[in-house]
């Protein structure tokens, strides 16, 4: 043995020995408790970066520790290999997406292996290979059979640069595409959806079971699901038309002094009086040209126009004016709201701007109702604090609030008893839009027959292979929809000429079940053998970035629950413990763009770990570097990291050297 610490010599040697001895393989048959340690699998962008190294090292430390503690450990790795960047590479450089992807995988695997992570490489999965997407397609058909996949004409987010539809989650809070950064437009298209809303209540309630998850992530999911209880109340116009509104505060109905409709509301035309017709028309066309984000911005000056008509408040038969305003969206709720200016800030500002009446129906607790009551004139902002109801008929004196026995509950009861409305539960969560007008994804395995309608591709004909002879222009519709030879097939049921579905699946479909493939990765005849999956599941420790708090983690929970209900799984939740490591971010994070590993213009943000660097730093040093300098959940900022990188590197190498030298003196 050399007396000098020479990482290059020892690391290669031991990696070879460990591989020969099969130390990293996950044993199945032995009588030991199981431990499933999983890193979120990478997108094969071309190069590993420090974020990957940090992520996989954390999981590796846990896996090695658990093995020494006597567990049989499953610690696998794979590639989330479908997606836009490969197709963009094909358009820009003429390389077929499959070739680009596989080259990248080869390269990144060769960067990953020298790190000496104790990964069971025999279970590697690649989501773009037919033996994997075969089962993604099969799982889609499971959803279709369960009535959880459907097609509908829908207003979708259209990315004018990538020429594709984006999920709501892929549009940032400024209305821009998460990848191209382009301002998103709205278009109507026939799309495939998964009914995640059917599971909204379970996905919300079961968050309580996730005791090993960070509260922050659970809160983000809770907000995304966005459950609100309230009531649907029917207002009537003077002409007798119904104007249903949804409200989370039915207890303040007595304080409603006007109504606001979305400019797109179908009743606007009927409600508009001849004198108001001109201004209403002008306002409608102005609203149509604005984005939803602009229309609903909180700091925006309130605008609106009176239709000239009135509606009747069902609880006290008061005549209240009906307005239109752009901050009310047709796609949200019923497209109409009741306005309670005394107790809602936005309504308050609207009422002040247009000099509409304000009526107080909640008084601060402890104040006598008659002596020194809160008056509308005295209000400078809406009163949203605690209190008791006043001027509210039968509900006077009830404590305002959403708790048991409080005003919201009492109001719903009163509305139902008097036939004026019904209690409702609504969710912010929408159904999951899964179809993409793109080539590089798993084809949706259905055939559209003129006589039978939408027919699933029979199991025996799966997988529907992606054709390889395809041209990529980067313009217009998906390359698949131009491929007549592929599209035209006989209907599997009746044999008449039919057409294949040309949309492919959202890549989040592939990543929603990959953790179920590892326990039975090579199975050619099944997505997975339930015995094997039930043996290893749930994942005991999942490690990945906080940026997946909503999308991937919510979809995976949804998949798990659906597959459990189909009898394929026994677990309720896929991931027992979750560690969201801090993101390795560029200083330019300020521009609020995630570090997108696929973007050419963000490549400079990353420190690619090219093989020579791996050789120079050597993995132990690098592992200690990514572990020792900061607590795991903290964000690392590369601007400062860049400056201290050398120092840290030295420090970490120095630490190892010290241990080595200490031992040499024995």
């Amino acid at each position, binding site marked *: 043995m050399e007396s000098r610490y020479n990482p290059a010599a020892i690391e290669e040697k031991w990696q070879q020995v*460990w591989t020969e001895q099969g130390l990293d393989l996950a044993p199945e048959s032995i009588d030991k408790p199981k431990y499933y340690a999983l890193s979120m699998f990478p997108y094969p962008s071309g190069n590993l970066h420090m974020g990957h190294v940090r992520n996989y090292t954390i999981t590796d430390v846990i896996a090695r520790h658990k093995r020494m503690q006597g567990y049989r450990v499953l610690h696998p790795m794979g590639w989330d290999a479908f997606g836009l960047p490969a197709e963009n590479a094909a358009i820009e450089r003429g390389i077929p997406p499959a070739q680009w992807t596989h080259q990248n995988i080869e390269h990144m695997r060769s960067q990953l292996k020298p790190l000496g992570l104790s990964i069971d490489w025999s279970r590697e999965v690649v989501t773009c290979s037919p033996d994997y997407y075969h089962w993604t397609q099969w799982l889609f058909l499971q959803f279709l059979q369960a009535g959880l996949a459907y097609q509908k004409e829908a207003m979708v987010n259209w990315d004018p640069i990538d020429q594709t539809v984006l999920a709501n989650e892929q549009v940032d809070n400024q209305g821009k595409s998460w990848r191209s950064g382009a301002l998103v437009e709205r278009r109507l298209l026939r799309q495939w959806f998964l009914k995640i809303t059917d599971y909204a209540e379970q996905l919300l309630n079961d968050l309580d079971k996730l005791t090993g998850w960070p509260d922050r992530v659970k809160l983000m999911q809770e907000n995304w699901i966005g459950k609100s209880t309230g009531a649907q109340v029917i207002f009537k116009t003077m002409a007798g038309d119904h104007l249903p509104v949804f409200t989370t505060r039915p207890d303040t109905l007595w304080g409603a002094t006007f109504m606001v409709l979305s400019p797109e509301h179908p009743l606007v035309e009927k409600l508009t009086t001849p004198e108001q017709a001109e201004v209403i028309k002008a306002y409608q066309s102005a609203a149509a040209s604005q984005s939803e984000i602009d229309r609903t911005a909180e700091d925006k000056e309130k605008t609106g126009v009176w239709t000239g008509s009135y509606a009747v408040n069902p609880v006290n038969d008061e005549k209240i004016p009906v307005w239109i305003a752009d901050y009310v969206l047709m796609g949200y709720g019923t497209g109409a709201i009741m306005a309670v200016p005394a107790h809602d800030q936005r309504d308050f500002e609207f009422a002040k701007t247009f000099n509409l009446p304000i009526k107080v129906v909640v008084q601060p607790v402890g104040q006598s109702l008659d002596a020194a009551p809160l008056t509308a004139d005295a209000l400078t902002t809406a009163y949203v604090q605690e209190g008791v109801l006043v001027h509210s008929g039968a509900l006077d004196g009830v404590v305002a609030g959403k708790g048991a026995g409080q005003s919201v509950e009492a109001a719903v009861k009163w509305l139902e008893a008097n036939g004026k409305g019904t209690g409702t539960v609504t969710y912010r969560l929408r159904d999951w839009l899964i179809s993409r007008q793109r080539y590089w994804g798993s084809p949706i395995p259905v055939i559209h027959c003129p006589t039978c309608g939408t027919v699933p591709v029979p199991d025996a004909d799966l997988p529907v292979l992606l054709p390889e002879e395809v041209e990529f222009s980067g313009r217009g519709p998906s390359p698949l929809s131009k491929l007549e030879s592929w599209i035209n097939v006989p209907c599997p049921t009746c044999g008449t000429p039919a057409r294949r579905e040309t949309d492919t699946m959202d890549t989040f479909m592939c990543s929603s079940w990959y953790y179920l493939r590892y326990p039975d990765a090579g199975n050619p005849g099944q997505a997975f053998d339930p015995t094997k999956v039930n043996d290893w599941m749930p994942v005991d420790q999942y490690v990945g970035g906080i940026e997946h708090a909503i999308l991937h983690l919510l979809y995976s929970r949804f998949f798990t629950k659906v597959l459990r209900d189909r009898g394929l799984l026994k677990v309720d939740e896929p991931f027992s413990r979750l560690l969201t490591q801090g993101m390795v971010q560029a200083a330019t994070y300020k521009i609020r763009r995630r570090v997108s590993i696929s973007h050419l213009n963000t490549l400079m943000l990353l420190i690619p770990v090219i093989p020579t660097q791996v050789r120079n730093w050597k*993995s132990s040093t690098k592992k200690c570097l990514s572990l*020792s300098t900061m*607590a795991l959940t903290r964000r690392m900022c590369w601007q400062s990291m860049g400056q201290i990188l050398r120092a840290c590197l030295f420090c970490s190498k120095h630490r190892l050297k*010290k241990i080595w030298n*200490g031992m040499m003196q024995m």
Partner: protein
Amino acid sequence: MRRSTHTAIQAVTEDLEGEYQFNTAVSELMKLSNALGDATCKDSPVYREGVETLLKLLAPFAPHIAEELWQSLGYVDSVHQQAWCVLDSSALVVDEIPLVIQVMGKTRGTILVPAQLRPCHARAACLARRSWHNVILRVRRSKSYCGHWKIGEFCDWLRLDETAKNRLSAHGTGINSINGLHSSFTDCFS
């Protein structure tokens, strides 16, 4: 030495479970490594235990170097196939613990007091006043002060007997230098 070994086992194991404090685990390993370097008993079984523990605890963090050094100890099986170190909590018992002496808010020194007199790691800070009888000792456990004691109460807390108490008080009278403090404490506890 054994205490350092088992303190490291306890700390690293805790850091690898629960909250995953890998950064503090790595510094615990450094502490053990330093303790091994300073050890005088390099051919004892206790020292051997310390070295093997260090390598086993290091294995998840730096697998290659741990393996290389492990095999250099003469083992044929991989360090990664070893059972994780078992904590012997009796080895954690401390025989002496340091008392930090502060005079007028400034740390003047540390003296060792017998650990069996003390319920846990704690710091006593003395704020010197005019005479020993009025010295107020601020005793704290971790970050929160447990309370303020007059010298007599402090002696009770240390469970000193009457004789020791008297001796401490007698010695303390008129003492206003750190040396005097030190000698009176060591005298009393010896």
